[in-house]
């Protein structure tokens, strides 16, 4: 058997055709971890996909990158769909990717949709359960990671708006296994001990997997049951977690959550100042109005010549007094005449008058004797004459 040498190009061409003829290799779905990721200036993406034992080169042309729902990065676990083909020049085979998604995202997304629907049906997102965020909370509870920019942003914004603010940080893990339980426990603990007037539940941006604790039922229920109003600020503005739907208020970012929780003290001071001014102005207006009324009154005739009316009254009083005097004098005169008549009448009836004519009155023990039966023999009686009394004895 005699071998005839072929060129490298021919070989690679042959392999390329072999591979292209394989139906299975034309449509592959492969999962692995991204490494050596390069975003070329042309817009094409170059990377390798690997697992523990092996790797394969991948390319995604710019025309397909527009459909990506995430930004691929080294270390990310993904699924790619595409065609395996040979690059003749380099003699390498690689995956020409048409689509790529984060691995696990499909099932996570399904779980998210299912839970969202379930809780929505139960009414956990109902606006009637949304509690009002207090206007001036004394204490602001923050549930987030102790490290990182989120807590820093919240503290910065809060203290800028109100330097006297009281912030209580309850550090919780915001991603990974068990984070949801810790978050739910923290919400319950803050409620039990009444450690805050409002709670901020916050986390920075991340993949759907990173944000997952905030999509878990245990967190949703803890938020729903919280007596303390909760502001959620999870992920970027475009990320909506279940926690965001249940929370009493959703903030697009942690900084925005701080703005919603903490009132701007300068604004409030200004408001108070305005109230003070309004009160002062209103009272001043009232007093001014009263002064005007008073001045109008004082300008009237009665107040201008106050004595005139008094003098008029004096004259009236004088007249009344005079007529009173007159009537008294008249009455007195009448009485006097009446009396004189009576005295004359009395005088004519007086027994004394009879005595002057020579009669006398016989008395016994101070009583006038009117009958012979009133005296007995030898009894002493008294006789009253006009000019005195004499004792006498009854002889017969």
């Amino acid at each position, binding site marked *: 058997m005699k071998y005839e040498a072929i060129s490298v190009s021919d070989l690679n061409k042959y392999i390329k055709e072999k591979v292209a003829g394989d139906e299975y290799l034309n449509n592959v779905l492969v999962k692995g971890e991204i490494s050596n990721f390069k975003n070329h200036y042309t817009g094409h993406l170059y990377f390798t996909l690997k697992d523990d034992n092996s790797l394969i080169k991948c390319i995604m042309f710019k025309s397909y990158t527009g459909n990506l729902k995430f930004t691929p990065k080294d270390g990310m676990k993904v699924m790619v769909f595409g065609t395996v083909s040979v690059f003749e020049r380099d003699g390498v085979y690689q995956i020409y990717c048409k689509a790529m998604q984060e691995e696990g995202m499909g099932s996570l997304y399904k779980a998210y949709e299912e839970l969202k629907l379930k809780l929505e049906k139960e009414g956990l997102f109902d606006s009637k359960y949304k509690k009002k965020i207090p206007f001036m909370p004394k204490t602001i509870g923050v549930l987030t990671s102790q490290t990182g920019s989120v807590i820093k942003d919240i503290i910065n914004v809060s203290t800028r708006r109100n330097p006297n603010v*009281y912030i209580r*940080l309850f550090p919780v893990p915001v991603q990974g296994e068990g984070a949801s339980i810790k978050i739910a426990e923290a919400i319950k603990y803050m409620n039990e001990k009444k450690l805050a007037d409002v709670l901020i539940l916050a986390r920075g941006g991340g993949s759907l997997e990173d944000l997952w604790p905030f999509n878990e039922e245990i967190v949703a229920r803890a938020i729903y049951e919280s007596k303390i109003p909760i502001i959620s600020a999870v992920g970027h503005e475009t990320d909506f977690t279940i926690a965001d739907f249940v929370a009493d208020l959703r903030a697009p970012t942690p900084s925005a959550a701080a703005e919603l929780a903490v009132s701007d*003290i300068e604004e*409030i001071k200004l408001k108070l100042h305005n109230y*003070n001014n309004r009160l002062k102005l209103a009272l001043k207006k*009232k007093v001014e109005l009263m002064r005007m009324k008073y001045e109008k009154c004082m300008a009237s005739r009665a107040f201008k010549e106050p004595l005139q009316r008094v003098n008029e009254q004096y004259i009236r009083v004088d007249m009344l007094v005079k007529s009173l005097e007159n009537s008294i004098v008249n009455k007195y005169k009448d009485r006097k005449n009446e009396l004189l008549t009576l005295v004359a009448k009395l005088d004519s009836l007086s027994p004394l008058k009879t005595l002057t004519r020579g009669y006398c009155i016989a008395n016994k023990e101070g009583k006038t004797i009117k009958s012979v039966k009133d005296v007995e023999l030898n009894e002493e009686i008294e006789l009253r004459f006009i000019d005195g009394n004499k004792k006498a004895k009854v002889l017969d």
Partner: protein
Amino acid sequence: MEKEANFEDTIKQLEIIANELEKGDLNLDESVSKFEEGMKLSKKCSQILENAEKRISILIKKEDEVTEEDFNVE
């Protein structure tokens, strides 16, 4: 949290009093007493603002005990 001096309610009352006083149909005595009441409320608000506790703390959980310590952002 204790309810003794609720800022929100106090400022709402202040708003009501300001409106009443501005309407002007109260007599002078009533106006003066409303004014005094309003100024008192305003002072109360300022006091709440000034007396607010300033603190940034962290709750630290050790086993079943939770302690509160000052938190310093580096």
